């Protein structure tokens, strides 16, 4: 345990972020039950504050890992406690630390039993997710990846809806089974990639194309279940509908990102040849997810289920962007991960707020909110429009970039994906029409009190982010630019090798036609 790399800035920021929620859980364990809420909130806010240096000290010019910490953990085989973030993972870490306090706020009154266990689960969950985003050692990554299952299983199963036990075990077994091949793939990589679990070294090694294909599908099994990609999405509606609001928020905003993050961190850079070969399959599945998810959302009468299916659709855009291979697509995808986290998380919070009042998630029971709860209705409409991808709001930027990137890859795919945006407008606006402007159910009307200060306070930061990313995405795009370029660079080689002259010309032409992404938006948005 002597090997030591001093992280940038001198402070082990990532370890601090990891350890704080864990310490918080220990404090919670010892503290009195009635203090649980306050302690959990303090700890999560503290974690968020400690995570801010990641943003401010981040060097946008660097493509590599920053805030790196590396200690030998186990001797043989050498497994390291290695952490670090780049432009792709840093925004996701911040998203996690930003959303956890909001999750605690949203559970303030909604959770009434076994508070201690609830908040401990949430905090452990936070540690595990940050660990996944920050791990630079494959075994460490896998440990965090799996550890997450237990608190999530408990969150759904203990504090969930009527059918919670079924939903919890379904979630657990789906994701656990998906991870089986991932673990074996990690072990195979160890022996094939130079007897190391170091993610960066493994990324630089090159693998035989046959092996790449096998590993690609092994990774796919784990990541596709998490995303979830069609047809592995069936656990999602169950889990979302049954989970408590905080669970849904974490699930939608953070957990689903782990799958797409996996594709971006492992599948593409480590297995470029296989990724090129199988891109058409992933693209097809993504387009199916976009359209199928949207159609399913259209048919739901349960608000939560509707949003759950919209997640399937939105995550389709993310996988689409990742496998589009180019800077626009991948930047759009990362941005869209953050956006989906903000928007869908906010929508789930809105559903939670209304559920606390009416104890129903049926669209029919929750009409006429515009009159009864004007403040609430305003927020809901903002988030809904953000979900639709209205220009000026966050999702527009992400989806637009993804579509630009996909257009460069294949015009038909982009056209079909764009159809998903139209369908999103249909199901979201139809939802808004019914619950915001529809007739109020007289039985529910007395229960409809408008937002209180706590609820107001937790939605405001989300609105700020919606507009900030929507109007001025440059800071966020700058952060990820260098890292994304590096991912793209590893692929250009594979594309040139694998595809014939025609399509590689196509790629070149597109990158000439489009000025660098960031400039597009600067020009468009500048007042």
């Amino acid at each position: 345990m002597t090997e030591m790399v001093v992280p940038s800035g001198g402070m082990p920021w990532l370890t601090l972020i990891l350890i704080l929620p864990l310490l918080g859980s220990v404090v919670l364990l010892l503290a009195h039950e009635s203090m649980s809420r306050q302690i959990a909130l303090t700890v999560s806010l503290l974690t968020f504050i400690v995570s801010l240096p990641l943003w401010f000290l981040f060097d946008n010019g660097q493509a590599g890992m920053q805030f790196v910490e590396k200690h030998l953990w186990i001797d043989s085989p050498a497994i390291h406690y290695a952490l670090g973030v780049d432009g792709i993972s840093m925004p996701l870490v911040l998203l996690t630390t930003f959303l956890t306090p909001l999750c605690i706020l949203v559970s303030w009154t909604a959770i009434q039993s076994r508070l201690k266990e609830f908040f401990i689960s949430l905090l452990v969950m936070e540690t595990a997710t940050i660990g996944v985003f920050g791990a630079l050692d494959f075994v460490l990554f896998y440990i965090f990846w799996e550890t997450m299952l237990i608190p999530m299983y408990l969150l759904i199963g203990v504090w969930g809806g009527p059918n919670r036990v079924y939903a919890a075990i379904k979630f657990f077994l789906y994701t656990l089974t998906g991870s089986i091949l991932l673990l074996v793939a990690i072990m195979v990589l160890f022996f094939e990639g130079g007897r190391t679990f170091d993610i960066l070294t493994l990324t630089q090694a090159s693998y035989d194309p046959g092996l790449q294909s096998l590993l690609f599908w092994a990774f796919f099994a784990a990541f596709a279940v998490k995303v979830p990609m069609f047809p592995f999405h069936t656990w999602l509606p169950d889990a979302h509908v049954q989970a408590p609001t905080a669970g849904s928020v974490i699930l939608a905003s953070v957990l689903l990102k782990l799958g797409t993050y996996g594709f971006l961190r492992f599948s593409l850079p480590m297995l470029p040849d296989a990724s090129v070969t199988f891109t058409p399959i992933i693209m097809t599945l993504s387009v199916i997810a976009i359209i199928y998810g949207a159609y399913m959302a259209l048919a739901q009468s349960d608000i939560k289920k509707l949003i759950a299916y919209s997640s399937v659709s939105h995550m389709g855009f993310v996988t689409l962007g990742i496998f589009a291979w180019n800077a626009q697509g991948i930047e759009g995808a990362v941005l869209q991960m953050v956006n989906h986290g903000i928007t869908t998380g906010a929508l789930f919070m809105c559903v939670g707020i209304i559920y606390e009042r009416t104890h129903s998630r049926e669209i029919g029971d929750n009409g006429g909110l515009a009159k009864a709860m004007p403040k609430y209705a305003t927020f809901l409409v903002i988030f809904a429009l953000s979900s639709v991808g209205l220009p000026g709001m966050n999702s527009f930027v992400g989806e637009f970039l993804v579509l630009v990137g996909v257009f460069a890859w294949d015009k038909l795919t982009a056209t079909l994906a764009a159809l998903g945006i139209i369908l999103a407008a249909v199901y979201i606006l139809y939802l808004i029409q019914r619950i915001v402007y529809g007739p109020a159910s007289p039985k529910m009307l007395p229960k409809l009190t408008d937002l209180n200060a706590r609820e107001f306070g937790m939605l405001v930061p989300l609105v700020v982010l919606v507009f900030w990313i929507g109007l001025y995405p440059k800071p966020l795009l700058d952060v990820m630019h260098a890292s994304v370029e590096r991912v793209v660079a590893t692929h250009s080689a594979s594309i040139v090798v694998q595809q014939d002259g025609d399509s590689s010309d196509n790629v070149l032409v597109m990158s000439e036609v489009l000025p660098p992404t960031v400039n597009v938006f600067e020009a468009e948005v500048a007042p």
Partner: protein
Amino acid sequence: MTLPLADLVTILPELLIVGMACLILVLDPITPSGKKDFLAWMSLGILGVCALITMTDFGETVVAFGGLVVVDSYAAFWKMLLYLVSGLTILLSMSYLKEEKIELAEYYAFVLLALAGMMVMVSGTDLLTIYLGIELMSITLYIMAGLKRSEARSIEASAKYFVLGAFSSGILLYGISLLFGVTGSTRLSEISAVVNGPASEDPLMLLALMLIIVGFGFKVAAVPFHMWTPDVYEGAPTSVTAFMAVASKAASFAAFLRVLLEAFGGVKPNWNVLILALCVVTIALGNLVAIVQTNVKRMLAYSSIAHAGYALIGIVVAGWVGIDPDVSSRGISSLMLYLAIYSFMTLGAFAMVAILRKGGLEGENIEDFTGLAKRHKGGAFLMLVFMISLAGIPPTAGFIGKFYILMAAVNAELAWLAIFALIFAAISAFYYLRIVMVMYMRDPSPEQEKNTRLTLSPQVSVVLACAIAGVVLLGVFPGPLVSLTDLSVLSISPVR
């Protein structure tokens, strides 16, 4: 014939343990009832002394009695594990026996005698020595399984265990005698020389090998020789079940591995496929049948069968041909690591079953765990950790055990076996999590609500603390134990 003093010194721990067992039997009648705990404390003391002696055995190899036993790091590792398990079993039994009203001082003598048998097994280098060890262990365990004399189930367990155990010992002995016929010796090293050379294709040798594998298959409860396990585990007093599930399994694996590698290390192709077949069916059947169990002890019995299957992967790797010797020894060390970790989590789980019994409940049906999280937060949490660990989910030790044994498999280019094992590990999560589910997601019945007092005696607390510390610490810092297994494996590296 005179016994050389130097040889006696090498088996000093065994002698001390047997001596203490005899002393307990003598002291038992003159110890007033209610003071029997004193005998248990004495047993623990002698275990501590033996542990100190055995600790010095690491790193050296002393052959004693002309090759009947050896004291090496490999044996020392297993002995240390066995002391620990026996000590925890004694602690667990002190209050459990009172609860079950079978407070017999012989019990502690039996634990020590069984331990002595196991110690002979792990350090024996002669088939007859090993056989004697097995018999000493088994006969003691037959008696212990039937200690709950008032309960038919316990008697049935004892009888069943005895009949099937004797049967399997007979098969093993038959194999040994055939092997003696072929090779003219029962020493592992001498057998190895003949088996490697002139007798390598002898059908009689193959038959003997098969019979020996069957005999050990019974002892480690590998499918299809597992039939006795669920009934015996269910019927025996819980503390005895824990002891059998952990200690006897570990000792049998230790002897099994030594016999296969030291005697038959030259003819690996003759047995590795057989072990592979055993391994595959054991993992599959153990996990699948565990799903339908409603009795926790039966479920844990099938789970222990499944875990024997995972441990067999280590033997498969150690016996795989065409791989680096380094990889083979990885198989051995990962098996040692796996069984050490398995001991902690299984002991912990059985201890929880035992203390639920203390809570005035039967404590054996899965239903009895209903709403435990509301009645006893700490207990439910411990059980949660043990179940997660048994399912092999990080950050617990169970994951580390699986990780290392599967790494060894992948290293031996048996990636398909690793995938197979993991698929069944995912299936096993279903039944382990069912216990978590009833504890956390169901409300206790009013009747259960009343029986909420789980009084933990200090001794049981120590057992649970050790088990949880093992499961958590080995999950987070497995380094030292991994190094220890790597170190202990060297002396048994297979004959090339």
